């Protein structure tokens, strides 16, 4: 319940934060909403020597549209995303995914950037971010780079962020045309984390055939992944009941699934298939 001691800095600018981080990349941690890091610190499983609180850095919390992209500041809270009317119109997957995270209090404080950078294998955002083929903007005192969602999640609790980098922004190409989206999840009864979570963003062409599909799955393996075979089976086909089921059946192909006392690896794979089908059907149903 009581964290170990640490030094604390609350820089007013990102540059300041980055230079602090550059000085101590090994033992400093960035504090965003704190909803992944502080619990670990209270259990003393994480004992950073320096906490760099970016909560006071201006302009890290926003939802903007720029150049056909949705740009989300890393410090945007889950609740801000959940309650964004604009996102509900142009990318409803984001508010839907946000609403499924934790609980009201967690969503009020936890941030999308913090969650992504922590890369919990059962976190919700990675599935959505992968399905939307988002780009993640990492900055360090050396400069800025853009990481594709597929490359961002490296392993359990491990991202492509370098020790001196901070996740600054998430960029998503606003889905156009006849797009339907859904996030469906099996909540762990105790933690609320995703036992399995499937995010789907699916676009239909004028011919009624699927022209683009994104399917991201979390909770099953040590990290969220893109269900490429499901996407492959969807694109070019008419997503009727049969096609959807057959595409979804590949949701866990080749995945080295994790098991725990609540759900075995086999069951997680099975749930991935069921929830992929349901999420695809839901996404299709939402297309008007």
């Amino acid at each position, binding site marked *: 319940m009581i964290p170990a001691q640490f030094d604390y800095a609350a820089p007013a600018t990102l540059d300041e934060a980055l230079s602090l981080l550059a000085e101590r990349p090994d033992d400093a941690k960035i504090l965003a909403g704190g909803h992944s890091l502080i619990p670990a610190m209270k*259990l003393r*499983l994480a004992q950073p020597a320096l906490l760099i609180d970016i909560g006071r850095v201006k302009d890290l919390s926003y939802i903007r549209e720029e150049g056909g992209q949705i740009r989300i500041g890393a410090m945007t809270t889950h609740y801000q995303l959940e309650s964004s009317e604009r996102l509900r119109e142009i990318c409803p997957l984001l508010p839907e995914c946000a609403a499924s995270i934790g609980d009201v209090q967690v969503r009020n404080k936890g941030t999308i950037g913090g969650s992504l950078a922590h890369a919990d294998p059962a976190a919700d955002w990675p599935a959505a971010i992968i399905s939307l083929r988002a780009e993640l903007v990492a900055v360090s005192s050396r400069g800025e780079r853009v990481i594709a969602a597929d490359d961002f999640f490296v392993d359990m609790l491990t991202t492509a962020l370098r020790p001196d980098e901070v996740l600054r922004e998430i960029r998503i190409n606003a889905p156009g045309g006849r797009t339907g989206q859904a996030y469906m999840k099996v909540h762990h009864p105790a933690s609320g984390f995703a036992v399995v979570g499937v995010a789907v963003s699916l676009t239909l062409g004028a011919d009624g055939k699927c022209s683009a599909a994104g399917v991201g799955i979390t909770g099953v393996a040590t990290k969220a992944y*893109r269900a490429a075979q499901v996407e492959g089976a969807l694109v070019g086909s008419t997503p009727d009941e049969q096609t959807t089921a057959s595409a979804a059946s590949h949701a866990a192909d080749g995945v080295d699934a994790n098991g725990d006392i609540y759900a075995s690896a086999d069951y997680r794979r099975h749930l991935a298939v069921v929830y992929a089908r349901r999420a695809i059907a839901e996404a299709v149903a939402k297309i008007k």
Partner: protein
Amino acid sequence: MKIEGTHELRAPRERVWQALVDPSVLQRCIPGCERLERTGEDSYAATLRTGVGAIKGVFQGSVRLEDMSVPTHYRIVVDGKGQPGFLKGAGDLDLEERDGGTVVRYAGDVQVGGTLASVGQRMIQGAAKMMAAQFFTALEAEAQVEQGDPPPRHGFFRTALRAISGLLRQIFKRH
């Protein structure tokens, strides 16, 4: 908790074996191993500074190699205690030659205690697999180095990335 897996290393079995029994190589391959001092035949005292992501701990303990059968089999026993609890692992490694490379099969038992056990059950299996992958990826690199050449460096990130790219290849075999 049982873990098992198979890693294909692109290095000849003899080299892999040599790497597996060389304490300096082991030190570089065991994730987070800061110190590995010989305390007896095939026994070593170890300091592991290891973890996944933000979750880190320092463990003091021992590494022991048993049931050696050159160059096909041994058993590695790791034991560490630290602030977050303790971890123990014992695994049998079997080396098989295949197409000039080596297939290493491992089957073992991982046990954690203390805080790690009481709060980490959902992640332990994944973490164990991840560490095994890191170990073998590093080992492959070691075994590929000609004797006499300087050893490779296994940055945590680089190791992990390599491990995962292998995994990714496995998962998303394109048709």
